[in-house]
């Protein structure tokens, strides 16, 4: 009887075992912030940590579009609840801009909030500037963010200032970039860095002068020059790049710096 009972029970259990559940969404719901606060006894710091821990567990998973939205909102909520939260902005910078179909504006919002709260921390502005440079291709804005990061960076201030200088000169030459570089040079107390920034400012100023020659040439001839050699052949002096790389024209007729290899 025991054997019959065991076998019978076993067979029936196997037969009537509930079917395997489809993979459930890990991040299907994001509670509104007031509800999160209510759930965590009004403790915004605890609510921020809970949001972060939840997002952290999904950070390395491949997320479907719904989960990706919830993932971003969890990190945004964590930063809303505790703008000082270091892990939240770091995880945001490390994951959101790189995920397919992610919301870069949300990442920038989180980083800006962290930069405002964490006055001692250079990294939020660094990541903010990196996203402007790498994903948004806005070199002037990226350079300004890098310089803000440099102002807070203590021992790392020099390489960040150099990076800001490079980004300014990589952008289309503008007065804004040249002025910013001159201001950075004026506030630098380390002579080699000061010289470097002055040279970068000069590089931009020369690029700017060349740009006005190009614009005048276009107005005169009615088309964009094919290269700078065409300008040189027309008697226009091509300035020397203080860094030895030179200048080129892009397809829109904008002067660009060529970095020395």
């Amino acid at each position: 009887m025991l054997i019959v009972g065991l076998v019978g029970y076993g067979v029936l259990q196997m037969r009537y075992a509930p079917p395997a559940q489809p993979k459930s969404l890990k991040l299907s719901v994001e509670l509104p912030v007031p509800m999160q606060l209510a759930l965590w006894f009004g403790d915004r710091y605890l609510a921020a940590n809970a949001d972060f821990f939840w997002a952290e567990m999904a950070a390395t998973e491949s997320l479907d579009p719904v989960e990706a939205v919830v993932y971003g909102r969890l990190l945004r909520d964590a930063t809303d609840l505790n703008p000082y939260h270091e892990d939240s902005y770091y995880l945001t910078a490390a994951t959101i801009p790189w995920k397919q179909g992610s919301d870069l504006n949300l990442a920038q919002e989180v980083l800006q909030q962290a930069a405002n709260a964490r006055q001692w921390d250079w990294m939020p502005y660094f990541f903010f500037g990196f996203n402007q440079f790498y994903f948004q291709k806005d070199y002037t804005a990226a350079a300004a963010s890098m310089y803000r990061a440099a102002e807070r960076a203590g021992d790392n201030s020099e390489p960040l200032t150099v990076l800001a200088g490079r980004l300014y000169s990589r952008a289309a030459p503008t007065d804004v970039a040249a002025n910013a570089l001159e201001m950075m040079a004026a506030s630098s107390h380390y002579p080699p860095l000061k010289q470097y920034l002055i040279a970068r400012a000069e590089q931009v100023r020369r690029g700017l002068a060349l740009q006005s020659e190009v614009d005048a040439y276009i107005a005169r001839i009615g088309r964009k020059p094919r290269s700078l050699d065409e300008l040189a052949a027309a008697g226009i002096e091509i300035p020397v790049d203080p860094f030895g790389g030179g200048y080129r024209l892009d397809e829109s007729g904008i002067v660009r710096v060529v970095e020395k290899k």
Partner: protein
Amino acid sequence: MQGVFPYIVATLKCGFRLRSLRAVIVVAVLLAMGSWMAAEFSPRAPATVSLDTGISLIRFVLVILALLWAQEYFAKDIERRAIYSLLSQPVSRSAYLLGRFLGVLLLLGGALLIYGAVLALVVQGELMHYGGQRPPAIGIPYLVTLLGIYIDLVVVLAFAWLITSLSVTPLLPFSLGLIFAWSAHTLGPVLNYLAGHSSEAERLAPTFQPILDLVRWLIPDLSQLDVRHLALYDLPISDAPNFVFALLLALTYSLLLLSLAGWAMERREFD
């Protein structure tokens, strides 16, 4: 006020009984484990997250402890009719009420110091592994944070005292006290959120803002007493500009509640 001191001593003696001490020690061990485990989830600032989670645990556990002790040392005196013998002595009812209140406050202060010290040790242990970019400050900012938690408890306890002096069942002060603490902790952060510029806040504000603005007059915003960011991120006290105001508000509110409790107690008729 005459006759307060014996009740303080009596409450402290009860508090040092084995059962209460054991509860405090068990919670301290759980606190140490909880805050240590929370640090494991933090890639960048384990000591900060450990302190952060530990403060959250302390804040919650002490509210529960305050309400349990209010039940044990005041509400049950009434339920067990022990209050008859206490009130037959030549001291005022207010002295009894205040003596018990101060006794429980001292017990809570002791528990807070134990938990604060345990948490400080856990955080120091974390700091030995990895300090992070800006290590938390286990000094004056931490003491200020603990002071904020203590004053928060004064308010919750005073509320429980008022309800106990009015109620006939010991469960009511606990349940209403918990609802009060939850409301007073949640009110400020929700109002702050609604005052923000997110689309969700703008959607919710017209419905909830008028109600919460009214509630604000009845229940103080105890979240202003939570200044842990000073300790978590080693910030100057000027980064908590409302703290002194919040302390004074909490103390005057507690005084009001205790006065009402004393008034109700003096007029109460015991069967």
